[in-house]
């Protein structure tokens, strides 16, 4: 009898061990993938690094013609950073305003409106691009870009360049809309994490709602809100389709951002546009992969920073002001 029981016990232990191993393998899958991706990108882009070295990052050529191949990633790095930065400048204030409204409104109003804002995230990037291309661009160009150009075009370099609607500004505005769900949702969590006693202290002093935000919520959640904004930046940097369809698709020197109304190109959009055309025999594809590597590094750094800021803020809430 003891033998039977001990055999049963062994079997139980074995099947559980198998389960644990299986789960652990599944868990480490992501590590393997990340390492593989890094390795593949580096090795497949090696030809361009070998040819250009680090100056690949600073060059502005973009010539795929055989025998005269020369590639530089700088215009697209600038394009990505410019569009993402403008998207942040527009999207973050809107998102914080939304977070303020929803965190304070009664649930009956706040929840449906919050849901609608979240629904913005469900719309695929390509449909943002479609709508941007055929609807938004027309109005934006006629009602905003052209007037701005007419009034300021001669004086401010930002507004020079005849606006056709497929330009940095249009792409940036659509990007701003696309990052709103993320930034506002995270901002809302951050604001909710402010301890009730802080808000009560402000209220006790006779503060209005807005003053309570200034006294109790914003100082406390400053770090987290910055983190939420950087998270939005990370989103914007990685966006592909909507930007591709709206940015005007310039290449080489012409893609360097010179005015809000000029066409440009981002790292993700140049890849989307040219990858399938690039001949694997040439150095064109390694150049594109090299751009992908740069994009990945930038995206990782931004997102890690954002994560640290946000989680640090949410952890502070746990060990609040306890002495």
């Amino acid at each position, binding site marked *: 009898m003891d033998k039977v029981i001990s055999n049963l016990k062994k079997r*139980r232990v074995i099947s*559980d061990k198998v389960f*644990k191993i299986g*789960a*652990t393998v*599944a*868990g*480490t899958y*992501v*590590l393997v*993938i*990340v390492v593989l*991706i890094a390795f*593949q990108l580096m090795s497949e882009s090696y030809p361009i690094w070998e040819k250009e070295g680090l100056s690949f990052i600073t060059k502005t050529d973009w010539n795929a013609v055989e025998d005269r191949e020369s590639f530089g990633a700088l215009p697209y790095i600038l394009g990505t950073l410019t569009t993402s930065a403008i998207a942040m400048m527009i999207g973050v204030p*809107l998102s914080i*305003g*939304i977070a303020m*409204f929803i965190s304070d409104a009664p*649930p009956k109003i706040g*929840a449906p*409106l*919050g*849901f609608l*804002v*979240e629904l913005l*995230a469900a*719309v*695929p*990037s*390509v*449909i943002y*691009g*479609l*709508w941007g291309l*055929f*609807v938004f661009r027309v109005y934006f160009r006629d009602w905003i870009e052209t007037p701005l150009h007419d009034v300021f075009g001669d004086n401010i370099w930002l507004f020079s360049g005849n606006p056709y609607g497929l330009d940095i500004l249009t792409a940036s505005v659509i990007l701003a809309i696309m990052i709103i769900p*993320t930034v*506002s*949702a995270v901002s809302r*969590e951050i604001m909710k994490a402010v301890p009730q006693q802080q808000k009560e202290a402000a209220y006790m002093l006779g503060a*209005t*709602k*807005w*003053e309570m935000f200034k006294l109790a919520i914003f100082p406390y959640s400053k770090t987290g809100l910055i983190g939420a904004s950087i998270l939005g930046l990370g*989103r914007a*940097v*990685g*966006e*592909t*389709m909507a930007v591709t369809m709206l940015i005007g698709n310039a290449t080489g020197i012409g893609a360097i951002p010179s005015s809000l109304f000029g066409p440009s190109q981002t790292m*993700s959009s140049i*890849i989307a546009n040219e*990858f399938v055309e690039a001949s*694997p025999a040439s150095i064109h594809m390694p150049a594109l992969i090299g751009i*992908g590597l740069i994009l*990945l590094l930038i*995206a*990782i750094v931004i*997102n890690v920073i954002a*994560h640290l800021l946000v989680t640090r803020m949410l952890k502070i809430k746990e060990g609040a002001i306890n002495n």
Partner: protein
Amino acid sequence: MNPIQQRRQEYRSLFKQNVAKRLLVDKVVKIIVFSCVIIAIIPLGSILIEVFKNGLTAISIEFLTETPGSAGSGEGGIGPAIQGTLIIIGLSSIIGVPIGVMSGVFLSEYGDNALARFIRFFNDVFMEFPSIILGIFAFLIIVLVLGHFSVWAGAFALSLIMFPIVARTTEESLKMVPMTYREAGTALGLKKWVITFRIVISAAKSGMITGILLSVSRIGGETAPLIMTVLGSSQFFSSMDTPMDALPLRIWRLSLLPYDSAQLQGWGAALVLIMIILGINLGVRYYFTNKKNGFFGQLIKQRKKITK
């Protein structure tokens, strides 16, 4: 009034009669933040309206079932694209869901150690990888190796988007199941894997399914990873080793054509895609709605997990 009280009265008299102004500022801020919400919702409304308005006119049985006609002719349809989208999300799910679920199980049930923290961090970082990079990766390890575009490559790329999301939502759903369930299973002498699958996952079922379906709707709309993996096509699916069409790809390609008829077909395809995505989103919510926090509250919570 003694001198102390007098002094206090003096102090009080210094308080500016600024309450009215402060209330006005408060009101202005209220209006501003409300406007922010409206500004955000207007594009949503416009997108939905335009997609429905323009797309509806393109929809017909032919449109939904035929292959694309010649560019600009206005004939043909998006049959292959619809088929392709359904195939690719099915295949991606087959690859991505099991890994995601087991990963979530690992993080939840075996997750109290340094390795798990490390994995969780990498999971979060990985979720933010630009999807076009995942497409490049799938291209490099599958398409290049095979020598041709492949449906497997596309499914693999999309599965890479899916599994971290599924892992995260699975972990959170499992964590919500009280320890007492597991303890009861142990007390009954059940093996851990039996406890996990039969008891814990059963209890966490609705949260997990919600997460899975939401990630499906997310990949349904993904375009970038498909560009260099399945490429797109004008034919119906023929084999795993030939290019295949998908709705997002078709929409993109149509938008690049200079013909009004192509534009119209683009709207039609967009309508079909939006219907699928919204259908999954709202359907999942409605079906799995938790009475607590209400319909919208639960939606927002789950939505946040996907988009975070």
